[in-house]
């Protein structure tokens, strides 16, 4: 993978209409710094829409170029809610270009709960489903291709609980 396809993209979750309006109309997205993923930096932002979005739910359909990052308090970003309990908290405000449709929607077959997925533009443009987005080691990539070719319904990067060893 070379050039722009190798550039980082971040899949973020949108779970309400108000945030979607900010993305679609105002061209920005916010991430609380406290909950930001370690790899929050990206040149492209894509959006995983949750059940609120009806027929468009449980899939990634749109992405946008990142224009710039800045930091601001919630009060500065959303002045209409100055007394919100988190009004003083700091956020990354990610200014975006126009929303673009992906060549094909990227569904989550298991309708799984997702927070952020750091990936690349190339993976975003080529993915058939959410599991194709995870950045794996080379070994995991081979394994993942085998699972897919064998028709096995595997899930990548799924955290599972484990009992301590006896």
């Amino acid at each position: 993978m070379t050039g722009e396809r190798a550039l980082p993209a971040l899949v973020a979750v949108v779970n309400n209409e108000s945030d979607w309006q900010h993305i679609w109309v105002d061209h920005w997205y916010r991430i609380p710094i406290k909950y930001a993923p370690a790899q929050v930096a990206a040149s492209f932002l894509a959006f995983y829409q949750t059940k609120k979005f009806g027929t468009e739910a449980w899939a990634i359909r749109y992405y946008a170029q990142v224009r710039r990052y800045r930091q601001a308090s919630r009060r500065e970003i959303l002045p209409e809610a100055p007394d919100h309990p988190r009004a003083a908290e700091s956020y990354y405000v990610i200014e975006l270009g126009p929303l673009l449709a992906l060549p094909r929607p990227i569904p989550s077959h298991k309708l799984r709960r997702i927070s952020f997925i750091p990936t690349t533009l190339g993976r975003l443009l080529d993915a058939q489903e959410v599991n194709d987005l995870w950045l794996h080691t080379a070994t995991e990539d081979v394994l993942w291709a085998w699972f897919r070719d064998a028709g096995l319904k595997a899930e990548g990067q799924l955290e599972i609980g484990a009992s301590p060893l006896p």
Partner: protein
Amino acid sequence: MQLGCGAHVLGKPGLHSYDGRRGQHAPHLSVSLVYLRAVLHYLVECEIRMYRMAADLVPYATHPAYPQLHHQLDECCNELAELGQWVMQQHIRLSFHAPASVALATIIPAGVEQARLRLNVLTGVLDRMALGPEAVVVVHVGGLAGGADAAIERWLRAWESLPVATQARLALEHDEHGASLAVVLRIHAATGVPIVFDHLHWLLHNPEGYNLAQALEAALATWPPNVRPKAHFATPRTELRAVLKPEGATRRRRWLLAPPRPGHHSDFVHPWEFARFVEVAGHCREFDVLVEAKASDVAVVRLRDDLARYVPEVAQWLYERARQ
């Protein structure tokens, strides 16, 4: 002595050193700075507190086709100040290495102007981060056309045309061919610009026959007493390399194996070579070393492990120096 690494870190997938989008997609310093922050957090986890930032951190900042991208420094004043404060708290030493196109001794007048613009941008980053004088922009002389005397004269003229703030951030490195250590020492004598000693360049191009102690001490002595000098360390690559070459009548390109080029940096650092360097360095004033190996941060981590395993007294010496 801190050990540092170059811009492109390899030890953690997904880390990038700058916003690498093409100009038409409006890449931005604010995006680069979020990348940089992630890289620096990772390096702190690895106990690497010296880092050379990408020369393209401020993308297209001087490109004539993208004037709309020429104000990124001013647009990111707050972010730069805030990140600079964190960098100082973490005791991280940052620097830049100007791109090869920055050649103050060039015979092309437009080249000098372009170099001036690039250097002003890199200086602008360090100044807006309010970093100390150890945060430098390393440059080369940029060619010896017409001989060393003429090149030095051109370099001095170009240097005089730089803003004082930019002059104050410059450090000069000797070349693997062209400007030797003696040439850059002459420039230092005329300007006070400190000299970055480069171990591999000294091996490759040492017409004056300085031994390591002489060369290192001469370079370190060019730094002001209150500024910790820096040096570069690398060993030459000895392995075969894969190259894409056109072949036969069809000129179809095929991967072929070729011997290493002289001056190619190795992927990792030879620990015993480094130990020999430290034997000499131990008698010099305190300085930091940027490891110029292809494996970047991974090479630094590996070097520390190798030293601890094979030359523990050097590892211990490094550990103690890093704590000072």
